[in-house]
């Protein structure tokens, strides 16, 4: 582990019964780095992402965030308390947004900061306004999610995650469920985060976006990292046959 290592995954393995979905994966992400994980569906890339914040705990291996082991083995109560604490530092954005439909945009953003960080109503409102302005949706603060477009929902979901002031952001196919014309507005927000040097790990099917924003690209297939490197190498000069096959299918579209 170098000094710079921020997120470290060591010998990660995961099985669902007899099915091994992750096999001995190692990954180091430095502070401010943006890493894309690409690969065919079923390759384990979402599972790896969801292992980072213990949504899908690993069967074996370690996940570290800034010197703290995320997947510690602890008695149930202590484990829950520990996980609740570290998750506050790990923002996550889902394919299907998962906004809380019974709360307004403001309620979605302020719920966790008020409850977990003890912000006052005024502080939380100010935070919501800031985060919404950042994703360009200040005027939607009192709308319910059902009144928003898919792209707007995802931007609110990003604002909600950012309101916890996370150290790292995980994106699980954040634009896969969007109509094509709505993808760009979400990509723009992510690019803006990249410019602010937010550490990000992005599972995506969008090769153009990965190529333009990311510092490093991981190609996964059948539970292993087949190849990794800067986007220029992965996309223009991949060394592995499997990577070439995958990219041929995806770049020709």
């Amino acid at each position, binding site marked *: 582990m170098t000094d710079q290592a921020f997120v470290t995954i060591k010998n990660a393995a995961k099985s669902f019964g007899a099915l091994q979905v992750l096999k001995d994966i190692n990954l180091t992400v430095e502070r401010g780095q943006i890493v894309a994980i690409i690969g065919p569906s079923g390759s384990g890339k979402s599972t790896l992402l969801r292992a980072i*914040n213990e*949504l899908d705990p690993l069967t074996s291996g370690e996940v570290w965030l800034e010197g703290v082991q995320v997947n510690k083995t602890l008695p149930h109560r202590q484990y829950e308390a520990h996980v*609740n604490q570290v*998750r506050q530092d790990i923002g*996550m954005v889902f394919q299907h947004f*998962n906004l809380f439909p019974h709360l307004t945009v403001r309620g979605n953003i302020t719920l*966790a900061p008020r409850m977990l960080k003890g912000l006052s109503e005024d502080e939380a409102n100010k935070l919501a306004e800031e985060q919404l302005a950042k994703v360009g949706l200040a005027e939607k603060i009192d709308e319910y999610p059902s009144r928003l477009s898919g792209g707007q929902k995802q931007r609110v979901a990003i604002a*909600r995650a950012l309101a916890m002031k996370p150290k790292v952001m995980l994106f699980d196919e954040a634009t896969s469920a969007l109509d094509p014309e709505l993808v760009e507005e979400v990509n723009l927000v992510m690019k803006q985060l990249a410019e602010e040097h937010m550490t990000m790990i992005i599972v995506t099917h969008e090769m153009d976006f990965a190529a333009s924003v990311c510092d490093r690209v991981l190609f996964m297939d059948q539970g292993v990292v087949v190849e990794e490197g800067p986007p220029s190498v992965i996309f223009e000069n991949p060394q592995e046959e499997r990577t070439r096959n995958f990219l041929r299918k995806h770049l020709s579209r």
Partner: protein
Amino acid sequence: MDIELILRVYPFFLQAALVTVQLSVLTCILGLICGAIGAFMRLSRLVPLRWFGAVYVSLFRGTPALIQVFILYFGGPQVGINLDAFTAGTIALGVNIGAYMTETIRGAILSVDKGQTEAARTLGMSKGETMRKVVLPQAARMMIRPLGVNINALIKGTALLAPISVIELTQTAQRFIGSTYKPFEMFLLAGILYMLFIYAVGLGINWLDRKARIS
């Protein structure tokens, strides 16, 4: 049809209807309490609690409510439980409908999209916080209608207390048949009162459901 007789006896029926309303309200409250506890047992992380919840549901849904009423009221004294008919009946019916409500509440909680829990947990909220602030508010809306079905059933179920001599509607009808030999009129009168009560409750459920949907 003997209208004159109906006009003569209906005040007694109204009084009995009031008892039916009381029974229904108390049974409903007890049922909701049992249902909430039962649902949380069935959804618990702890195996013994889950098991206990499952046994509760299958036991009380798997036997006739009438038998449950009889066991508590007639069988109770044998094991030192001496309750008057009203109390025994309310408890038996409440615990019985609670088993159905357990499944209603559990079903509504499970029908909330898993992504909701994931999003809340990812923000760092605990299981309890997630349940209270994210899952339950959504599940509550979804359980209004099915709980209405349970409540409808429990109102009609209070007629099962006639055999243990709780002076509710059905028992009152039977009593007046004994003295008037006019079963058609007496049961019709009881039936109309049941219908009015159930209709009013139905309107209340609809109103609640609409209100929950709008907000």
